[in-house]
């Protein structure tokens, strides 16, 4: 009997847990450690952030699901990994601090044979002075943040109805942020809400982003085929901005936020201030505060984790110049090179490099969108780790690992606004692969057949379908395993 310990119950960790029970559970022990008591379908936080959905529609208690499935759940925060054990415990283990109110702040040690690190990101609001719910901006990163964002937006709309013009700033709050797609989606949800409230003409809607061009989305942009022509996501996105009357501030690193003021620097070195009445700026991510120690008790965190705090896996971290990067630099098995029984999946793994070209301003400020690795890729990686563990258990340590490189998998991004079945619209995009592979696809780096974008009501239906389908899947209802990641 082996014990599989999964840290995190987001898309990657929860997917891994459900598949682990299904594929390994009969003879093996599955344990999940997560500091949160709820599962959150994060893509729908955008709708909570404009008041179109209630918080309870995007979260549900996770402990009953694990109880029903026979998965052991510890509501706790992982603090330290001891991959060799220590002087008192021979086996590898993780030290945790309980967040469960019944055992608050108690320390536990959970041994494992296989460890899956799916801890996701630390929301690094502290990287930018004044950023975030404790500062002067709102966020939609958690369901709770999204509720606060909806309240602040509602207040702004009321002021517009009273005849006061408002500047609405939406985007990212640092030069190295990721998830520009979420900021883009929130922008057009807010635009939709303002139109519905009849106050669109009272708002200056500004999208502030670290992307060098619109349509970059942290993946270096895309090339689509439309009506017999190749077009770019830049042109496609600019068209949407023109149609909806949204201004853009591009290539921007937000230096600090004060009450009603965003101070930013752009790639060309110019510095400026944007006065705002409402601002939703996403934070940069870094790895969670996990440490690692060897058997002697020496800190080996720098061996296990990249400087960003994300865990090292089977990627090329040699730091080659951008021009020399290749699709093959990206990991495929997500196993830690020092400890192959440790996997890091979803946002928790350290990407080898940015996909968008990193740039520096003349002042030396790095403005480089980080690669997105949320949603679908996270789920696939979570399942992959379990498939590899199954092989290892069945065939021994020499068994071949399963592979799921982001340079060989696609992703869908549906940025939807509105509500109901007839009042919405969405920009639906897919790309294949996520990481461009110029050896396989010499012209654009991606398959033109599988990379496309389309705007319309149908995309909104798809986003609604995904919402209900993935919450059904996450609850482990009958047939959940037939819903792809």
């Amino acid at each position, binding site marked *: 009997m082996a014990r599989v310990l999964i840290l995190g119950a987001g898309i990657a960790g929860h997917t891994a847990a459900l598949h682990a029970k299904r594929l390994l559970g009969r003879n093996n022990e599955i344990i999940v450690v997560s500091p949160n008591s709820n599962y959150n379908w994060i893509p729908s936080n955008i709708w909570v952030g404009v008041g179109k959905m209630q918080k309870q529609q995007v979260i549900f208690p996770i402990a009953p699901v694990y109880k029903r499935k026979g998965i052991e759940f510890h509501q706790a925060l992982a603090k330290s990994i001891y991959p060799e054990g220590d002087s008192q415990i021979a086996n590898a283990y993780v030290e945790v601090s309980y967040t469960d109110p019944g055992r608050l702040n108690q320390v536990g040690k959970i041994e494992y044979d296989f460890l899956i690190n799916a801890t996701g990101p630390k929301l690094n609001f502290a990287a930018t002075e004044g950023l975030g719910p404790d500062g002067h901006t709102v966020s939609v990163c958690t369901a709770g943040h999204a509720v606060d964002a909806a309240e602040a937006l509602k207040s702004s709309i009321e002021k517009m109805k009273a005849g006061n013009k408002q500047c609405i700033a939406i985007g990212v709050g640092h030069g190295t942020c990721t998830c520009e797609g979420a900021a883009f989606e929130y922008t057009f949800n807010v635009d939709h809400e303002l139109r519905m409230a009849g106050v669109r003409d009272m708002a200056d809607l500004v999208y502030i982003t670290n992307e060098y061009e*619109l349509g970059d989305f942290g993946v270096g942009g895309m090339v689509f085929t439309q009506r017999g022509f190749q077009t770019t996501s830049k*042109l496609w996105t*600019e*068209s949407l*901005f*023109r*149609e909806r009357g949204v*201004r*853009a*501030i*591009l*290539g921007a690193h937000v230096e600090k936020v004060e009450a009603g003021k965003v101070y930013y620097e*752009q*790639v*060309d070195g*110019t510095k400026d201030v944007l006065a705002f009445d409402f601002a939703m700026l996403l934070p940069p991510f870094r790895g969670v505060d996990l440490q690692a120690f060897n058997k002697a008790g020496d800190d080996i965190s720098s061996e296990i984790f990249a400087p960003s705090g994300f865990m090292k896996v089977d990627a090329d971290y040699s730091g080659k110049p951008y021009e020399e990067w290749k699709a093959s630099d990206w990991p*495929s098995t997500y196993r830690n090179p020092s400890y192959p029984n440790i996997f890091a999946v979803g946002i928790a793994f350290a990407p080898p490099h940015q996909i968008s070209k990193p740039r520096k301003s003349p002042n030396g400020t790095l403005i480089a969108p980080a690669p997105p690795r949320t949603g*679908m*890729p996270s789920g*696939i990686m979570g399942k992959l780790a379990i498939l590899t563990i199954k092989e290892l258990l069945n065939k021994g340590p020499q068994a071949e690992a*399963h*592979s*799921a*490189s982001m340079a*060989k*998998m*696609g992703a*869908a991004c549906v940025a939807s606004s509105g509500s109901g079945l*007839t009042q919405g*619209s969405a920009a*639906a995009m*897919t790309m*294949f*692969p996520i990481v461009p592979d110029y050896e396989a696809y010499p012209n654009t780096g991606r398959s033109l057949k*599988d990379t*496309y974008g*389309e*705007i*319309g*009501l*149908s*995309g909104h*239906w*798809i986003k609604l379908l995904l919402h209900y389908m993935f919450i059904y899947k996450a609850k482990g209802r009958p047939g959940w395993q037939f819903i*792809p*990641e």
Partner: protein
Amino acid sequence: MENQNDSIAHAPLPTAKTLRFRKNLLIQVWRFVAINIKMLNMIRKGHHQK
């Protein structure tokens, strides 16, 4: 970065016909099916890596 919004100002603007196309229920039902098939094909490729 002074002229970043010039590019937006000169981007293609959808015509009234295109905007109607994006809301037409019959057309959008067909697009819903088509996009889902495209997404399923893309997902299948990602799930079956050698």
